[in-house]
């Protein structure tokens, strides 16, 4: 099968799942009657938003490498503004923030477009890490200086650095897997997101024991084990779009789903700390872009490096 056939097959599969979900949502809504079940309304909003997100990714895949890089650059931009909005910046941070949005972010994605691994893997952890506090210090405002600098660095690491490791998967040179980098992205995104969705759904249906009642009341042991387990199986079943053997695909999916789970936990802790439920309002039913990306953020760099270390030339 060619890469194109595999991509089409994969998207048809996702389409079938979404059609089934939409139908199930409609039946549930009809059975509940209008406006009586907020959980079901939210479910249907989420399903509608999934259609839009799948269409966006599908469109990016049609355009190819540049389309995917631009899509994730835009996701990073939105995630960064959601993150920065919730932090307490001061006037003295202005130049540093301008640099983060309009210099660091475009440079990071440009480096990925040209495949300069040596620099895009250290641009933010080393150079932004050193230069952002310099810019902030030059403004001379020392109020909560360390806190502000740390938060700005966190924002860049999460919203730009980690997210950019999703499109960076295309730049990997894997013998026997030439020209299929996009499918590696699809594997990561499908595994992480199906893990999220199944944790949520299984938690709602079977969830009893809360894992972290204070942090994230919707995370239950039953949901987590079921969701992560199911995502591992889905990953294994998708081995044919990856350079991995079935058992390798299962292990990768397990690692990715676990990182995604912990990512969701960490991002919930930040939201709790800031006193909000969602990062934003951009995606109806889901909250902000960061609410959808939280698990991808933690999974992407680990998946990238495991693949690079064990499979790339």
């Amino acid at each position, binding site marked *: 099968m060619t890469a194109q056939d595999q991509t089409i097959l994969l998207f048809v599969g996702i389409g079938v799942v979404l059609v089934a979900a939409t139908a199930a949502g409609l039946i549930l809504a009809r059975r509940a009657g209008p406006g009586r079940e907020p959980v079901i309304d939210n479910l249907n909003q989420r399903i509608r938003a999934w259609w839009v997100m799948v269409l966006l990714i599908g469109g990016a895949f049609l355009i190819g490498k540049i389309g995917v890089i631009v899509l994730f650059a835009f996701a990073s*931009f939105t995630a960064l*503004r*959601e993150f*920065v*909005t919730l932090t*307490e*910046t001061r*006037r003295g941070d*202005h130049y540093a*923030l*301008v640099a983060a*949005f*309009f210099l660091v972010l475009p440079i990071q994605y440009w480096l990925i477009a040209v495949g300069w691994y040596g620099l895009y893997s250290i641009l933010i952890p080393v150079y932004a890490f050193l230069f952002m506090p310099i810019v902030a210090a030059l403004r001379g405002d020392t109020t909560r200086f360390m*806190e502000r600098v740390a938060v700005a660095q966190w924002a860049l690491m999460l919203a730009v650095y980690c997210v950019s490791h999703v499109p960076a998967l295309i730049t990997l040179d894997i013998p026997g897997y030439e020209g299929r980098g996009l499918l590696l992205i699809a594997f990561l995104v499908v595994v992480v997101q199906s893990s999220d969705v199944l944790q949520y759904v299984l938690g709602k249906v079977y969830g009893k024991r809360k894992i972290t009642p204070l942090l994230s009341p919707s995370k239950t042991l039953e949901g987590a084990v079921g969701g992560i387990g199911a995502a591992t199986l889905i990953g294994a079943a998708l081995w044919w779009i990856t350079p991995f053997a079935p058992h390798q695909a299962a292990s990768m999916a397990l690692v990715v789903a676990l990182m995604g789970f912990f990512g969701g936990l960490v991002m919930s802790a930040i939201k709790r*700390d*800031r*006193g909000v439920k969602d990062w*934003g*309002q*951009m995606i109806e039913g889901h909250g902000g872009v960061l609410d959808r990306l939280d698990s991808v953020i933690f999974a992407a760099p680990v998946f990238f490096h495991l693949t690079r270390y064990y499979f790339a030339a």
Partner: protein
Amino acid sequence: MTAKVLAGLVTFFARSITAVRAEWRGYLPDLKPRIYFANHVSHGDFVLIWAVLPRAVRIRTRPVAGADYWGKGPLRRLIGRRVFNAILVDRDAETKTADPVQQMAEALDSGASLILFPEGTRNATEVPLLPFKSGLYRLGLARPGVEMVPVWVANLNRVMPKGELIPVPILCTVSFGMPLRLRDGEEKMAFLERARAALLALRPRETARL
């Protein structure tokens, strides 16, 4: 024509930088003449309020702005007068020729809604809201039936602090609260304090800091 295009451009620009979102807290937009009174941290405040109002409401809503700033230079005059149809009031008691309250009351009578910044000037301090000037009260006395809607513009000062050139694309929210009216025989200070409290109540919750 030019004014319309410019208005579209300015609101488009404001929207793309701030992704501004309106929050109508238990109250919906209405076509009848109203006074929207808001906190004032930037020249962009009224642009954001204007941008989130529904079109039908927007075209009959006029910002009240200081003539000393918006009357200066051809570009500012064009934006202030033609694009946003601002009511330019003279803030200097010495040179004042028209009574600002009278100007605003006449605009209300003609069916327009107003955007008013009762602090009287841009707030560059760390305090969230300066004390109100008496204009809102005197306008209430002049037109007692008119609803006054508190409007909190959040984060715009972080997007573009005074004196900066490049905006940071932080998300902004414009929150509309429940309208209030001047009560019969209400004292000036009591009313201004009540209006100020209603506006402050719209402020997004500040989280505890270490």
